[in-house]
């Protein structure tokens, strides 16, 4: 028996159906561009679907804020765009300070980000206790960004893929990429003998697994996988609107409308290249920090723990750029556990890069070249060596 490979010709092929790839597919369809997306599992079933669900601009590097602001507009239109609000709420994000040094850092950030009108308010002293009586004693104050918030990643990320499909994108799930060729003009992405997708433009949104694809085009980057430890409590009476973080990191926490508290912090462990889990020490550390942050949680129960596999680059900034080696190749990966909020903005930027070759949003900080040997520097070095002789 012979199998016939299904060949699909399209304008743009996307590898990876997380929130980046799926929102890029949707943005491309809205521009009328033909697009095929390959996802090895189910769209939004990996990091995009199992992350904490923070929709937060506050605390991002200033270089990410234009992108975050762009995404902020997309989040505002979520129901019209993807057919669900995905439990998105501009509930406020409160970053806690536990020392005067923390408060100074929060104030410095408020000043640094002033141009972006995040509306940050610093809260401390009696006002803090008045507004959040549930907060543990170590908090001395914090920084509130009222229009930041939270959403349910289990709903939002798959919904982007579903919306892209409804808009005419071909979304091929359970379709792992097994080979990739480029003949100078067309990329051919194969999934075994089942399907071959040919396109002049390829978007690499393969998340923690994107490094392999980049390396194939001479762009090996120092990406590594991280595994945030996550846990959720049973539903508790609703008491906390804000999504909480802590200056300097350590723990983050939010209460969903159903009443459960979702907590994250520390690192889980990889079971293999694809799967990860929160293990005992991470859960225990999370428990200590949770009770310190919110003493009322002492007698609550964790009912479930989990982790995911996320791509990190050394500077904790993503790669979001055109390829430096291969015309038509676009990268969007390595979001360092903080990609959910900017995801819908990244999708729009990727669509611009794919169609127009440039983005209206500044993304210079995320160029892949920052990890590659600098050809200019090599030339300069040769020149200076020559001059010395």
């Amino acid at each position, binding site marked *: 028996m012979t199998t016939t490979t299904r060949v699909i010709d399209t304008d743009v092929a996307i590898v990876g159906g997380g929130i980046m790839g799926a929102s890029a597919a949707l943005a491309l369809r809205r521009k009328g561009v033909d697009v095929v997306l390959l996802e090895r599992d189910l769209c939004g079933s990996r990091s995009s679907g199992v992350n904490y669900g923070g929709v937060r601009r506050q605390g991002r590097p200033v270089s990410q804020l234009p992108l975050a602001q762009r995404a902020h507009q997309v989040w505002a239109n979520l129901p019209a765009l993807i057919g669900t609000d995905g439990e998105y709420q501009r509930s406020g994000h409160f970053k806690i300070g536990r020392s005067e040094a923390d408060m100074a850092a929060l104030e410095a950030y408020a000043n640094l980000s002033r141009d972006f009108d995040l509306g940050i308010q610093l809260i401390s002293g009696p006002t803090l206790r008045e507004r959040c009586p549930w907060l543990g004693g170590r908090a001395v104050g914090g920084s509130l960004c009222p229009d930041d918030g939270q959403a349910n990643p289990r709903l939002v990320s798959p919904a982007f893929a579903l919306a892209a499909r409804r808009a005419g994108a071909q979304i091929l799930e359970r379709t792992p990429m097994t080979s990739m060729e480029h003949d100078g003009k067309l990329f051919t992405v194969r999934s075994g003998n089942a399907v071959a997708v040919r396109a002049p433009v390829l978007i690499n949104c393969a998340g923690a697994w994107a490094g392999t694809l980049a390396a194939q085009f001479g762009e090996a980057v120092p990406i590594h996988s991280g595994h945030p430890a996550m846990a959720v409590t049973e539903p508790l009476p609703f008491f906390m609107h804000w999504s909480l973080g802590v200056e300097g990191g350590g723990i983050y926490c939010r209460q969903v409308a159903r009443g459960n508290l979702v907590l994250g912090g*520390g690192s889980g462990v990889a079971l293999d290249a694809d799967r990860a889990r929160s293990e005992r020490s991470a859960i225990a*550390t999370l428990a200590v920090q949770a009770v310190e942050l919110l003493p009322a949680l002492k007698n609550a129960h964790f009912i479930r723990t989990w982790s995911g596999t996320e791509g990190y680059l050394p500077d904790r900034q993503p790669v979001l750029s055109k390829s430096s080696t291969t015309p038509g190749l676009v990268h969007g990966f390595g979001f360092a556990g903080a990609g959910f909020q900017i995801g819908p903005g990244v999708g729009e930027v990727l669509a611009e890069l794919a169609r127009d070759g440039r983005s209206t949003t500044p993304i210079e900080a995320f160029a892949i070249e920052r990890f590659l040997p600098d050809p200019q520097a090599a030339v300069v070095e040769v020149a200076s060596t020559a001059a010395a002789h």
Partner: protein
Amino acid sequence: MTASTLQPVIVGAGPAGIRAAQALVAHGVRSVVIDEAARSGGQIYRRPPAHFARSAQTLYGTEAPRATALHSTLDGLTAHIDYQPNSLVWNAQAGLLDVLHGPTQTTRTVPYGQLIVASGATDRVLPVPGWTLPGVYTLGGAQVALKFQGCTIGRNVVLMGTGPLLYLVAYQYAKAGAKAGVKVAAVLDTARFGDQLAALPGMLTQPAVLAKGLYYVGWLRAHGVAVHTGVRPVRVEGDTRVNAVVWSDGQAEHTVPCDAVGFGYALRSETQLADLLGCRFAWDPMHRAHLPERDGAGRTSVAGVYLAGDGAGIMGADAAEWAGERAALALLADHGVKVDAARAAELERKLTKLMPFRQGLERAFPFPTDWAAHAPDALVVCRCENITAGELRACARDAGADEMNRLKALTRVGMGRCQGRMCGVAAAEILAQATGKPIDQVGRLRGQAPIKPIPIHLQAQAAAAHDTPAEATA
């Protein structure tokens, strides 16, 4: 490796766990036996609190000699094992178990070199409208009330569903109730009488067990208990608690007034621990479930991890005793301890010989494969999260969910306190029905720690021993 360097842990002190511990002791090997219950015996031979004074005959009926033998076996072993009752294994990682001790509310980590998982089973639940009303229990729950606390779930009780436990519980209730004024209002079996006749040839391979089953049915009928077969449960009625059950015989609906209901459809294995340990699972058509794979001796796909008893497929208490002993012998032999090969072979033979009877049981009390088709959209499938059959169907239809973990992610089914232990079977049936996929193709919910909810402050205690700096993220 010699016997003295082994570090075996047995999870569960029911028939399988006790016999496993005994076999290890017989070879000079001390084991840790961790059991969730306060006293050994498992669910089937559950013992009442120590100060209760009811005879074994009263508690276990015809099973009294077996129960007594097992209890005295474990009692006799206590000097040779490290027996840890009241202890729930809530997490497992290679070589380590996390254990919650109920009475002291402390958690500890127990290392293991080898592990025998004898985690047992719970009722298999297929919801019926009204099942969340106060007064509705599982059959196993109804039995536990009687065996452990010496009380009944009501004074006028309907027992419903199918499986051997249905008639056993009915018999026990009718017998115990005769003195106390407790009545079995009706036994409603979804299996047809014809199913039971067709199953006779296979069941004749275990004539003594078959005779017991027939005895229960005969006794019930002789004592005027209404026993209906070929029943379809329609709904449980009541305002603040149950006051009637409505069932259909295919032609007409009938109402039985009652003040409590016990229901269930045979048993389902507790497989979360095997899942967390990374054991490979496979679809088992007879059990209509994904089960951890085990060879005839109980070896799993993970070296050093063994399974015994109903936790890896429902074979009953006698088989659990044999499988527990067999797994222990496999553990010993795999680590260089000399064992009686003839005894090992005999145990495997006994287990194999039980299969025709086991298959006969499945024919006599078949799973109601039309349950999902009859489940109304308004039926609550997941009681923790209040998710209805209609919501599950809509998710399959509108969002294309065709796999259990995706269904969970999109609807919250199985995301509550029970983590799908109670609702998982029913949700899979609804998903298969809604998608038209065969039931074995819709997958299974991934196991995630904790196996049962754990107080946060207990996990915080454990942090003292594992203090690691946290990494900032999100």
